[in-house]
């Protein structure tokens, strides 16, 4: 389970983002405490993905800053990278590698091999029987599950998820809701861009609608 101080929080402070000279959002502020979930909603092109990329440190805001436990994430550098897990639009998996090889690579990159955690991640996402299959042979939903399995490889308190339910079937969605609940119950924070009207998640959550 995530292990973060209960006083820790994610702060979005007066964020501004523009694209192609058009302002997507301005003066966007929000504070997320441990155990909270923020659903980011909005039409296509409203800046949901841009916001998540900013929170991950992949892009910089035009103005404002993001703080983790009171410190600007730009100052935290790789220490901030160590506390977050990001699942973007793209799955970040290699189709010529097996499901197991894909996860093992990310484990090696982010903390070293842990066979037990890898097997658990595959089992909890329903991919245990596909572990040795090249990702190319998995369905779109299974590939999405594989991307989400990355969340379980190591304990990162902050999950940033961009349309995580894309391509998932009902079982997959239920499974993912379970993962989210477990994460927030353990003190984790989730920021999730979604089009889903009712995500069906329990626990403290808020909504941010980008116009």
């Amino acid at each position, binding site marked *: 389970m995530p292990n973060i101080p209960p006083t820790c929080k994610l702060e979005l402070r007066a964020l501004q983002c523009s694209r192609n000279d058009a302002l997507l959002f301005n003066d966007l502020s929000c504070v997320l405490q441990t155990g909270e979930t923020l659903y980011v909603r909005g039409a296509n092109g409203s800046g949901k993905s841009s916001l998540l990329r900013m929170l991950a440190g*992949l*892009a910089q805001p035009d103005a404002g800053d993001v703080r983790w436990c009171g410190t600007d994430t730009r100052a935290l550098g790789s220490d901030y*990278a160590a506390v977050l897990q*990001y699942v973007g639009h*793209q799955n970040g*998996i290699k189709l010529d590698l097996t499901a197991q*090889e894909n996860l093992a*690579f990310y484990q090696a990159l*982010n903390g070293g091999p842990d066979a037990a955690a890898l097997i658990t991640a595959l089992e909890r996402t329903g991919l245990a029987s596909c572990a040795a299959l090249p990702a190319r042979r998995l369905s779109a939903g299974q590939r999405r599950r594989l991307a989400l399995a990355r969340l379980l490889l190591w304990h990162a308190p902050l999950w940033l998820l961009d349309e995580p339910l894309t391509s998932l079937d009902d079982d997959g969605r239920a499974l993912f809701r379970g993962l989210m609940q477990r994460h927030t119950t353990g003190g984790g924070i989730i920021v999730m861009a979604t089009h889903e009207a009712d995500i069906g998640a329990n626990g403290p959550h808020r909504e941010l609608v980008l116009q």
Partner: protein
Amino acid sequence: MSVASAFMAVLRRDLLLGLRHRVEIINPLVFYILIASLFPFAVGSDRSTLGIIGPAVIWVCALLAATLSLDRIFHADFEDGSLEQLFLARQPLVLLTSAKVLAHWLLCGLPLIPAALALNALYQLPVTSLWPMLTTLLLGTPVFSLTGAALAALTVGLRGGGVLLALLILPLYIPVLIFAVGAVGNAMNGLSIAGELYFLAALLVLALTLMPLAAAAALRIRLG
């Protein structure tokens, strides 16, 4: 988790992907041999003519073959979202970029060196040119991969980025081409090649020092 382990993880993954998708390795190699093989048909089999153009043709073809494969360093990772994950890894991006460049050279640069042996014979070049040809390729092809990686990072994800990359990179390869072909020519004429080799080694050291940093910086710009 040491940085060396992360470096090895990226290197191992890229080598594995390359070996499982061999066409990306074989294409530049076939291009290299095929294009270099066409010149003797065009200019005839006169040994003195082949001796004059041989080193230059072999080197220009190596340069073009290396350029052909540069796009593969970052493009696939950019498309499938892996590049974002590398960016968010706990290890320095410059280190992970270096691993990717090394994998590219091992897969696409190194095979050009033994292929040059066959081309040396095809052009009926003297045995004295063999050692300088191999040495210059060994020093020059990593410079191609390193310099190419920095520009490939800068153009990754751009529409028409492949063409732009070729236009940007070819002028930067000219110093390597001059010193490498000069070294082979000197060897064929019985002259010393030490000066040319020192220059090539200096270019390699410069590229090793600067280009991974430039590639990592370029990736930050492109991803941001």
